[in-house]
């Protein structure tokens, strides 16, 4: 545990230097967005990686956090810093609600995945029809720079904010790995019936995991709203976010502390590479991204983290095959 904590601190310290050492605005932004997706991936990882419950609808949490923060700010004049915990809580509540309904009825595997997908879709349609979200037109957050408003004139503030969120997510995951709750969650993932036989309250464990996961994704949504100052139902509840949230940890290594971080930087790098290769040709870069994704799965079936571990073990002469 101490080694992992050290690794987290070292990573955060290295990242904290990025705004000072990296001269190009473009690369600073690049790291910032990679961190943002790492946060979403880490949120998914708690439920999907450690809990084994694959969600295809993390946009439901992300979007709720984003809308909650934006609506409180725009319509009720609430300061974004105060709206932030509210957004996290609202997203956590949505998680608890979806979890309560689906885990109560024992939905597992593909069924759970589809129900999360459906909830995100219901929320998207609702956001498209109720006036408070600005419907399809979207919601514009008025520009009012100042740290007190969570709007930073120079992007460094945004950088440190997302770094803080990622740090929080990493510490939370570290705690999870070493807590009784985490042990119960992994037991549920490995074998639900066996876990129940050992006295684990499966329902409550899963419910806590989805609530935590949702709240974390909600913080990401709140951050997104303040960063781009614009939301519409497609951005908030569309499938793109759900897909990113699950790709990042699966590519990086599910159920590992640093997997989502690795996956996020790798996927973000790949997509940047694809953009560099094809420049302005809209569509081709994403197509190449898809090809690289398939190749990644083909040659690294255990995720980047798994591959790193196996290679390292082999290099050190351990000879342990994963």
């Amino acid at each position, binding site marked *: 545990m101490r080694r992992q904590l050290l690794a987290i601190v070292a990573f955060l310290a290295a990242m904290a230097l990025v705004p000072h050492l990296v001269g190009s605005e473009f690369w600073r932004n690049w790291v910032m967005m990679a961190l943002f997706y790492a946060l979403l991936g880490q949120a998914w990882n708690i439920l999907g990686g450690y809990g084994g419950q*694959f969600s295809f609808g993390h946009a439901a949490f992300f979007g709720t956090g984003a809308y909650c923060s934006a609506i409180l700010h725009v319509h009720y004049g609430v300061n974004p810093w105060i709206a932030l915990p509210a957004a996290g809580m609202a997203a956590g509540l949505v998680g608890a609600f979806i979890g309560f*309904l*689906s885990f109560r*009825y*024992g*939905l597992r595997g*593909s*069924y759970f*995945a*589809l*129900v999360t*997908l*459906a*909830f995100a*879709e*219901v929320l998207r*349609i*609702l956001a*498209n*029809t109720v006036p408070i979200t600005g419907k399809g037109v979207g919601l514009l957050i008025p520009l009012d720079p100042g740290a007190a408003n969570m709007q930073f004139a120079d992007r460094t503030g945004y950088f440190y904010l997302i770094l803080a969120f990622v740090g929080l997510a990493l510490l939370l995951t570290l705690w999870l790995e070493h807590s009784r709750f985490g042990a119960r969650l992994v037991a549920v993932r490995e074998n639900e019936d066996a876990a129940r036989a050992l006295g684990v309250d499966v329902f409550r464990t899963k419910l806590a995991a989805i609530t935590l996961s949702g709240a974390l994704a909600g913080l990401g949504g709140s951050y997104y709203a303040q960063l781009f100052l614009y939301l519409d139902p497609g951005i908030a509840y569309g*499938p793109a976010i759900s*897909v990113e949230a699950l*790709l990042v940890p*699966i*590519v990086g290594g*599910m159920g590992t502390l640093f997997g989502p971080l690795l996956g996020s930087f790798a996927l973000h790098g790949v997509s940047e590479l694809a953009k560099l290769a094809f420049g302005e*040709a*809209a*569509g*081709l*870069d*994403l*197509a190449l*991204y*898809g*090809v690289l*994704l*398939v*190749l990644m*799965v*083909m040659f690294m*079936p255990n995720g980047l983290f798994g591959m790193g571990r196996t290679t390292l073990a082999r290099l050190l002469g351990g000879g342990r095959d994963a």
Partner: protein
Amino acid sequence: MVEFQILLPAILNGLTTGAVYALIALGLTLIYGVLHIINFAHGSLLMLAMYAVFFLHAGLGIDPYLALPVVVPGFFALGYLLQRGVIARASHGRDENILLVTLGVSIVIENLARYFWRSDTRTIETPYSFETVDLGVAFIAVPKVVAFAGALLVTLALWWVMSRTDLGRAIRALAKERQGARLVGIDVDHIFAMSFGIGTACVAAAACLLLPSFYVSPGVGHTFVLIAFTVVVLGGMGSFAGALIGGLIIGVTESLCGLYLGESLGQIGIFLIFIAILLFRPTGLLGHRA
């Protein structure tokens, strides 16, 4: 209370749309039943088939219905090769990897379409596009009647293949017990690919039936695939009769919700049914306990 004269056409229209939903869901349910994966590439394959039909019509002047004997075998081959050459090879037989691979494949297809054909919405015009049939109680557009009959015929054909042929028996055996099927000498890789091919062929048939009355654009697959998921769950994953009944129910629900709640809220009825079914009867109407 809405008048009967409005209600009945809405229901009939819903049934015709529902039949096409059923056809798309049929492919999905077959692939799910055998491979136990949710095929994310299903929607983009539908989109690809619709473009194939579109260009056959625009370039060679082939009527969408006459394109059926070309497009369906073509897409069967495409699906077979996709499973055998890409999905099986890349996924190492692990479920979450299959999911990623089909997701990757759909990203590739969709964005290539976006690159080559732009995001424009395209439609084709046939002499019968705006013809209607008088069913006594309501007028229904000709393409919709054809789509309804066509979807039922394809379902019947598929049912025949599944229950009467060696291929169908092998597929069902594989769906039930993978290890056992391998032990009695079934070529598992081949049958997996055949199932994927048939599933893709279903989508191609749906594309031929859809195009006279529907548009095509690179994102069109999304519209259908989410509904197809719903139909599959409603009918019971892996059940053919369930997919047919589920498709019809969803078609009518969409039509009626659109009538009562307006266009923008119309689809919400589908998803509420979806969630309710998942919660209260997750095995679906005709599904077996997993």
